[in-house]
């Protein structure tokens, strides 16, 4: 038996399950699976779920259920997780979640911090671009702004701290790095991450269903495109 994961009270109608305290693809997959299971088992007793790096917040309808019952439903979901592991041991957790490929126009024109990031890393710009594309990232959390997905982990060689002074305006579609995380800005907003390129694919579209191309637990790869393809895909400079 694996050790029991801690479940804490968060508020009058929410419990939070802690899966671990570090970034891990396996944990991200477990959180996504538990969320999916609870959506089914709790049905209209569920108000909302907030998956994040190492935890899952479960918000329930207190007029229909209570923390005793929800705790039990969470434990049942976690047991399914263990069972799934045994039956399907061939399927590594790193393979779970959808795989989404995002096109990026990497250049000093579209990524104003590309040069400084390369200088800092003592690499060429082409090396930085190549390293950013080498990793299959995991969506660890979505938050900060609608559609903002935190992807990890960036190769240590191109990890870079946030800017000392955040920009007032980061353009929509900006592909950025902060420490060992990377992301695509879904809309123009202030931001302090290092900008290395632009992605023409919308990351958040309120009129589309689904309104985001990724969800927590999915895997993301980046694919370099040139200026011409970027414009052809609807990108704006």
């Amino acid at each position, binding site marked *: 038996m694996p050790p029991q994961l801690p479940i*804490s*009270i*968060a*508020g*009058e*109608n*929410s419990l*939070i399950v802690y899966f671990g*305290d*570090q970034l891990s693809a396996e944990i991200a997959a477990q959180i996504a699976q538990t*969320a999916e299971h609870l959506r089914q088992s709790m049905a209209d007793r569920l*108000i*909302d*779920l*907030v*998956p*994040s*790096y*190492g*935890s*899952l*917040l479960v*918000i329930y309808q*207190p*007029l229909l259920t*209570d*923390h005793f019952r929800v705790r039990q439903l969470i434990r049942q979901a976690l047991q399914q997780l263990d069972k799934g592991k045994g039956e399907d041991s061939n399927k590594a957790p790193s393979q779970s979640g959808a795989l989404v490929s995002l096109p990026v126009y990497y250049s000093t024109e579209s990524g104003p911090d590309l040069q400084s990031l390369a200088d800092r890393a003592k690499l060429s710009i082409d090396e930085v671009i190549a390293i950013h594309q080498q990793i299959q990232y995991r969506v660890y*959390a*979505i*938050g*900060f*702004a*609608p*559609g*903002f997905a*935190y992807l990890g982990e960036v190769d240590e060689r191109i990890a870079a701290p946030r800017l000392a002074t955040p920009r007032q305006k980061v353009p929509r579609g900006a592909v950025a790095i902060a420490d060992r995380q990377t992301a695509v800005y879904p*809309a123009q907003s202030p931001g302090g991450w290092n900008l290395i390129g632009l992605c023409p694919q919308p990351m*958040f579209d*309120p009129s589309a269903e*689904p*309104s*985001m191309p990724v*969800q*927590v637990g999915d895997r993301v790869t980046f694919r370099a495109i040139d200026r011409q393809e970027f414009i052809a895909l609807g990108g704006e400079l």
Partner: protein
Amino acid sequence: MRAGFSVIQPGIHSLLQDQGRYGRHNIGLTTGGPMDSQSFHWANRLCQNSPQCAAIEVTIGGLVLEAKINTSIALTGAAIPLSINKQPAALWQSHRIKPGDRIELGFANAGCRGYLAVAGGFQASPSFGSQSTVAREGLGGLHQDGKPLQAGDQLPCAESADQPANQRLAQAQRPNPSTDNSAHCRVILGYQHQAFSSVQKQLFFSSTYQVTDSSDRMGYRLNGPAIKPAVDGILSEGICLGAIQVPADGQPIVLLADRQTIGGYPKIGSVLSLDLGKLAQVTPGGTVSFETISIEQAHNLLLLNQRQLDCTELEFVTAEASDNDQS
């Protein structure tokens, strides 16, 4: 949907709000919704609406509307003087309205958020299933862009053909905002509360905090004795309504309707939702104190509150009673 009201003056900050946007935390959307959900509920109830109907959350006041249809309205929450065609009209009561009527809200004498409901509710197009206006996300509101009401806006609502008699909520039942600009909040310990020593907890629960200027629909930033948890930061995790986060400076922040969905500061617990409405009526400079309750007590309070909302009968108002009651 035809225009039910024209906005003559939007006032300080007036927002369309329904119960909030739920089930979308997975794409990073907050809930929005009324800051004082009790007063919001009663405004709808007085107009014989379902609790889901959209009303206007008026902060401080100053809203002026002109009616285009026959309908009923009700204003609840903060003590904002209300007049209809220059005649003072009572809060916590429905009023029949006819085309051409001018509805004017003054500025709050106590509290800061009023709720103006109309029979059948305001009917803007929803964003992600809700009309709730969230400025930070650019979602909801009359034009689905997160903007507050503007002069010249036409508010869609349905004509209410057979107007019911005016009704009011009995004095004793009204959740009036405090006259001394204070709130007492009941807290369910949770999240990282074990990272706060018993001394730190005692300090927090025995102190009075002041509401600072940097308080808004996202959260109320407080100022008072600093409390220090044993951890600096945590992996960002889901934040529920009313969560009390404590950043490195030890000054607590109570997270409200427009809160961020995830965050990395330690949290000592969460305020009971029934008390958030009272907190939301406190203006900068006002005071807040806290006490702990168990999750079981919180659950009982929520169930009983719902029963009270469902079972409370409204009073019918005669013309004289209405004129004499300006509270």
